[in-house]
């Protein structure tokens, strides 16, 4: 079982600069992701949140700057920096269990242990009855649960989540958000969570990093000390932080909406 593993790994990014074809997207970001905490990145559309997350996990090489891992991952960790994707990124030609197994097949893990690990994470995410289903047969919420199961299967040290709920309907989103809260609270996983949704930000975030409009810089960092397990959706102080975030973001969001999309 995934117990309360000692959270030992954090990330530290310094002087990150990145652009696409002359368009400067990130302009000097310094960011520290503390071990065992949830860092939320919010900001207007197109400000570079996904780019930043890609840089943190080594999927995008920044034009300048460095990202360092602090601490050492646990011994059973197979993939320290592990993503959960907005569009789930499931292989349509593999069953649910096949999709989870994919990320273990190239490791040293013996076949029996692998099967056991797959069963374990499917159980944990409530997917046991769907092990042999095809992704196309699942609802969006179930697909993202597969994404979570796959991420947990490698015993990650840091979970990198890019708007994991934004492709889902509002009710499914609420349900899954509560599952994230439980999972993260139980495992103490270091998490970086990108979202547009300020409710998600305050429900999950211990450190909320507000990025400004392009070229993206860190505008403000808010912290909420209350443990995840003790937060409730309607809490006053969370609502206050949410309102504060909206004040910060409103003008940028409006401006971002009124600009031409380039990609």
């Amino acid at each position, binding site marked *: 079982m995934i117990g309360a593993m000692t959270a030992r790994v954090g990330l530290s990014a310094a002087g990150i600069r990145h652009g696409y074809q002359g368009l400067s997207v990130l302009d000097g970001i310094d960011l520290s992701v503390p071990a065992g905490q949830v860092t939320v990145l919010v900001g207007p559309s197109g400000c570079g949140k996904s780019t930043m997350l890609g840089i943190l996990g080594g*999927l995008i090489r920044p034009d300048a700057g460095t990202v360092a891992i602090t601490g050492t991952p646990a011994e059973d960790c197979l993939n320290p920096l592990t993503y959960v994707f907005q569009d789930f990124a499931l292989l349509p030609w593999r069953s649910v269990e096949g999709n989870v197994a994919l990320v273990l097949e190239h490791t040293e893990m013996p076949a029996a242990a692998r099967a056991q690990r797959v069963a374990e994470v499917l159980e944990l995410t409530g997917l046991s009855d769907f092990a042999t289903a095809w992704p*196309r*047969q699942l609802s969006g919420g179930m697909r993202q649960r597969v994404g979570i199961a796959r991420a947990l299967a490698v015993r990650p040290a840091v979970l990198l989540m890019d708007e994991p709920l934004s492709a889902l309907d509002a009710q499914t989103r609420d349900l899954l958000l509560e599952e994230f809260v439980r999972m993260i609270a139980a495992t103490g996983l270091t998490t970086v969570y990108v979202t547009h949704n300020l409710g998600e930000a305050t429900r999950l975030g211990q450190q909320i990093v507000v990025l400004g409009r392009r070229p993206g810089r860190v505008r403000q960092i808010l912290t909420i000390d209350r443990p995840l397990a003790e937060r409730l959706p309607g809490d006053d102080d969370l609502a206050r932080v949410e309102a504060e975030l909206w004040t910060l973001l409103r003008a940028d969001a409006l401006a971002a909406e009124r600009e031409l999309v380039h990609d």
Partner: protein
Amino acid sequence: MTDVPFRATGFAPRRVAWASVATLLGLLALWQAAASLGWLRTEFLSSPLLIGRALAALIQSGELWQHLAASLQRLAIGWTVGTVAGLAVGLALGLFTLARSPGMAVVSALFPIPKIALVPLFIIWFGIGEGSKIVTLAFGVFFPTVINTMAGVDGVPRGLIRMAQSFGVPYGAIVRKIVLPGAAPAILSGFRITTSTAIILLVAAEMIGADRGIGAFVLQAGNLYDTDNLLAGIVVLSSIGLTIAWLLGQLERRLLSWRGP
């Protein structure tokens, strides 16, 4: 008060299986009737019954098998060689920057050549025997396979590849578990094109220089004004095409079952 009129009629043709069968049978009956009643001269178009009789005779004498075996062997070898080479090159063009531009330049330059026009050249190079025929087929199959495979590889969602990379899946495993299955639909539908190309080239090559093979048989029958046997040969060629299409359909259904009904 008036009822709201229904306005969304039409533009939704349905399939009616018995109508397809009935149409084909009806046309055959009409053809036979026209021949029996003397409305058309069987020296020019034969008739379903005469063609059937010619086929039966060919089967009994064993002549059909000789021609069929020769043709199927050329088809199998030529298509397989062209397909394997095409898959390998197409995959390379789809995966490697270094291969892509040089490879595409060559493919684009050679693809438009009508392959039949090359048969005389291949005869000079490989002789009048099996070599030139197989090379013609393989050559004709190769280029569309390259292009379909490359397009299939290009069409594999990059997000899936990035996902695998983010979990540390090694290069070879990504090609095997993501690129190839992702390109499979495009590759398999390419097979439909390349198998029919291969049949066309087979017949052409057999007409240029062969004494065995369905193409050669059709040509000989034509030289003798024997439309019964000529059309019997064409029926055999069509059956080869239909059988291959059916086999490919089964293969697709098996390999691509994940796409659902």
